[in-house]
């Protein structure tokens, strides 16, 4: 794949499903996979995350974004379970703004480091200027 891929993790399926729709409209060329909820309920699951990463795995790398604390533990477990876990980075980023910035950056053909930086920089974003 030409571009860095993204994996979105949330405790809620609807959150990442809606976010993926937005990202696909903004940047259709970038592959986005999601893992949200556990069997229709709220939660995250390491196996689902592992499968999501595998489904969009790209030589250029995969950036993982998550919503809340415990999703991080499952994301780390998922990456440990993968046979090939090179070039997968979990971004310390807000989910919506971070994913938007990351997908645009990825669509420019940027490196995984640049995509992670774009996502993480969204934390500093000031959304209301007076």
């Amino acid at each position: 794949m030409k571009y860095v891929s993204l994996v979105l993790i949330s405790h809620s399926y609807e959150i990442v499903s809606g976010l993926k729709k937005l990202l696909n409209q903004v940047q259709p060329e970038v592959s986005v996979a999601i893992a949200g909820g556990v069997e229709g309920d709220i939660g995250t699951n390491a196996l689902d995350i592992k499968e999501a990463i595998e489904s969009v795995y790209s030589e250029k790398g995969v950036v993982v974004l998550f919503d809340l604390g415990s999703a991080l533990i499952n994301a780390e477990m998922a990456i440990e379970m993968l046979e090939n876990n090179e070039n997968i980075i979990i971004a310390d980023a807000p989910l919506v703004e971070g994913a938007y910035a990351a997908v645009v950056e990825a669509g420019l053909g940027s490196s995984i480091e640049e995509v992670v930086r774009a996502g993480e920089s969204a934390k500093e974003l000031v959304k209301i200027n007076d």
Partner: protein
Amino acid sequence: MIEKEITVTIENGLHARPAADFVKKVNQYKSKVELMIGDRRINAKSILQLMSVAIMEGQTIKVMTDGEDEKDALAFIDFFLQSGKES
């Protein structure tokens, strides 16, 4: 360096989808591209900087391009911000 004031007529302003498209196309030029929105000066090649300003329909902004393809870059931006499309 060349600059021009442009009144944005792209329908509904530079919202999520056109902003992403804008950044992608502006990055294809070699020149440095900056926008002056009110008293804020931003790098138009950075999606994060673009996300930090809201460019609305009807607003007048200043566009500055600097580099070997500065004329082409400025012409593109002029067109984009007035229609949202490339020629």
